[in-house]
């Protein structure tokens, strides 16, 4: 009987696909898929129909479903295209089969519903799995990418290292900051480390607490920590909160922080020899004949 129904579905493939296409076309206008070109939509629909029937024919072929879902994911179409499409397919198939069966009693009706479900369900399951798998993959890749960016340590000159922090600091990131900072102090043999918070939008007690702890840990391994990039509004909120940042030097810009880091290591920035500059001016004057 099940084989029988399958045969009916396969025999009426044309009319099922026709109804299905019309229904999906209607969904297109109210769905996110309205930006997709008609030709692409047509050809993808045709392919979708082929995949569905191939799967029914083979009793759940996985290869073509896999290829198709890969294609849809690459196109960036919403998952609802697939789930809606299969719902519509289920409805269309049931309609057509009921139309060809002369006598419908409750037993045969439930048999029809069950078999159609059995055709559609494995496809839905596989497509949804493929989709969520691809999302999970993207999310985990982004997490790794974010983690790489979250606490970078840059050795600028010998003995001076900078950690520029941009964006929100949460507990996990605070741990990473501490680890990278200490690791970097040892590895680069730094005497002074600058933590720059120009890009940190909010400094609340938690963030301040983590920075204080990091600075204290840096002090314990024998280096000095300078906090730079304290904007005026951040300075005011720190004062309002009553946070004590007296244990280490603070500067409002990275530039000033760097200058004082140089001073601490007995160095300073100087302009290159001005004599050469002077010579060139003389040269130009002599050319002009002044």
């Amino acid at each position, binding site marked *: 009987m099940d084989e029988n129904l399958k045969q009916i579905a396969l025999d009426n493939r044309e009319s099922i696909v026709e109804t299905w296409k019309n229904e999906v076309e209607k969904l297109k206008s109210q769905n996110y898929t309205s930006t997709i070109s008609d030709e692409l939509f047509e050809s993808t629909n045709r392919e979708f129909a082929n995949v569905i029937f191939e799967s029914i024919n083979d009793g759940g072929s996985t290869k073509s479903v896999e290829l198709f879902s890969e294609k849809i994911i690459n196109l960036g179409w919403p998952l609802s295209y697939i789930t809606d499409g299969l719902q519509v397919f289920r409805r269309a198939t049931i309609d057509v089969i009921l139309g060809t069966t002369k006598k419908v009693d409750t037993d045969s009706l439930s048999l029809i519903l069950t078999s159609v479900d059995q055709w559609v369900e494995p496809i839905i399951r596989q497509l949804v799995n493929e989709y969520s798998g691809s999302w999970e993959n993207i999310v985990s890749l982004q997490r790794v990418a974010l983690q790489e960016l979250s606490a970078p340590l840059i050795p600028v000159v010998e003995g001076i290292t900078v950690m520029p922090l941009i964006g929100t600091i949460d507990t996990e990131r605070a741990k990473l900051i501490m680890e990278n900072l200490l690791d970097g102090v040892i590895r680069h043999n730094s005497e002074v480390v600058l933590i720059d918070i120009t890009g940190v939008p909010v400094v609340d*007690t*938690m963030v301040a*607490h983590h920075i204080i702890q990091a600075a204290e840990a840096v002090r314990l391994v024998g280096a000095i920590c300078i906090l730079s990039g304290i904007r*005026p*509004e951040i300075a005011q*909120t720190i004062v309002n*909160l*009553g946070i004590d940042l007296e244990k280490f030097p603070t500067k409002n810009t990275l530039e000033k922080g760097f200058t004082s880091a140089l001073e601490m290591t007995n160095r300073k920035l100087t302009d290159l020899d001005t004599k050469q500059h002077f010579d060139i001016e003389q040269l130009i004057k002599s050319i002009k004949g002044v």
Partner: protein
Amino acid sequence: MEPHSFIGIKKEWDIVGARQLGREIARKLGFGTVDQARIATAISEIARNIYLYAEDGKVTFETIEGMNHKGLRIIASDNGPGIDNISQVMEDGYTTSGGLGAGLPGVKRLMDEFDIQSEVGKGTIVTAVKWLR
């Protein structure tokens, strides 16, 4: 009182969502950058308290219009364990989480009006208002 909006606090990143929304509302009301930073920091503190101690709660924003000035009211409410001794948590340096203990007294200093009500076993409601000058 204007229609208000709220953000549920369940995950650590909800704190960021709450203060971004709060900062946006504050900016639209016409608060300057310093007050925006104060408001965002205050939201951060009270939302973090929800995340740390109550696990589930929400931060609600209301714009209020007084006789001749406007303001922003922030209400943080939760159904958490509640606070046993409120005067103690309002002391600088008192902490149960190993933090700085500057959160709630800090919020009081950051904002213009501050109120905290708590019942052990029922939950806590923190209300803070910043007036537009």
